[in-house]
């Protein structure tokens, strides 16, 4: 039963993240920086579900993102799987129950993901315009964190409402 729930969670997370990244995000770019819903959902699954689910989700999500940009195929799947695995591993050790700690974790993960992505998948950019990459990485991390706050807040609120009626 739990496995079925995890699968539903993963599939719905993939659909939501893909829809958001393709339909909404291109219209909500601020100063060249865009929030990454795939990263937010990966972290949410890592925080609330099993490490395996987080790794699988991150990998599949990264794979689907990579198919749209063939030059980066493989990089995003590896990095998102790493984020899922890393957050899952740290979750129990750091006891990330506090919302602020989760948000801080989200920011650090977003920052690391973006930087590693630029460094590995688009290494040419690091040589040509590192200032741009740094600013873009920072802005994207902030933007993604803000999106994460909204998503986490929404999920928490929804659960509170659901609990009220149970």
């Amino acid at each position, binding site marked *: 039963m739990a496995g079925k729930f995890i699968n539903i969670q993963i599939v719905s997370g993939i659909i939501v993240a893909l829809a958001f990244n*393709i339909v909404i995000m291109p219209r909500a770019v601020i100063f060249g920086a865009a929030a990454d819903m795939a990263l937010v959902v990966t972290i949410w699954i890592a925080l609330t579900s099993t490490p*395996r689910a987080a790794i699988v989700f991150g*990998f599949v999500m990264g794979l689907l993102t990579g*198919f749209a940009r063939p030059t980066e195929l*493989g*990089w995003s*799947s*590896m990095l998102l799987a790493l984020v899922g*695995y890393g957050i899952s591993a740290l979750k129990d050790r750091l006891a990330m129950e506090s919302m602020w700690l989760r948000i801080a974790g989200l920011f650090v993960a977003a920052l690391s993901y973006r930087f590693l992505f630029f460094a590995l998948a688009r290494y040419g950019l690091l040589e040509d315009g590192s200032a741009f990459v740094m600013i873009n990485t920072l802005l994207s991390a902030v933007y993604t964190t803000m999106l994460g706050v909204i998503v986490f807040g929404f999920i928490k609120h929804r659960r509170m409402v659901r609990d009220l009626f149970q």
Partner: protein
Amino acid sequence: MFGFISNLLKKVNLLYFLGACAISIILILLPLSIKTTIGALVSGFFYYPLIELDHFLLDLATTKKTNIELNRQLADKAIQLAGCSEMRHENARLRRMLEFDIQTTQRLVPAKVIAARAMPDAQALIIGAGADKGIRINNPVVTADGIVGKTIAVSAGTSTVQLLTDHNCRISAIDQNTRTLGIIRWKGGRLLEMGDVPVESQLAVGDTVVSSGLGGIFPAGLMIGTVVYAKNRSGSLFKDVLVRPAVKFWSIEEVFVILYGR
């Protein structure tokens, strides 16, 4: 060696991660042409509904903008059309007036109505021609339809016209059919009264009433209106005669002043 593998197998999550990394590295190492082919195939399948949704939303936004723009253009065209319609009517009026100008032998001064004044005791128009065009007090004012009234005040560039529908306006009139004389005056409503018509007169409904020329202000033969009521009153020497004026006083825009009596 066996112990290491056994330990590793216990760490299922790590194995999952390493598996993901291995597949990712294989994908990274693939030639770009193969990556592009796989990417096109897979994204065509997975992204198609989302791209369609994206296009649908884009179309919706564009449709809204287009709709606003078309509505604005429609309003513009409606205003232009109203202007054209107005010009068409003005053109028709001016053509009729021009024909009237050709037919008449009188010296006419065309003038535009610039203001209307309607009060209980006086009904008047102000026209945009005055003494500078040779207009004087008591000049007849007409349209192609018939008599409008006469000038009662003249300044350099404007004149005040007392309408037939003013209480104080009187015109000596004649029935074109029976040659019966009478006095036209307004007694309220939309009709004029033709007074002083003897009961012996054969004047009847449908007859045309024109100016007689006897008053000295209006030349003879100018259209006043059509008889719509003519009956004898018991014990009276005169008929009750009502005339529908030929001119529509509520929609006069251009007039002619006849420089008459010089």
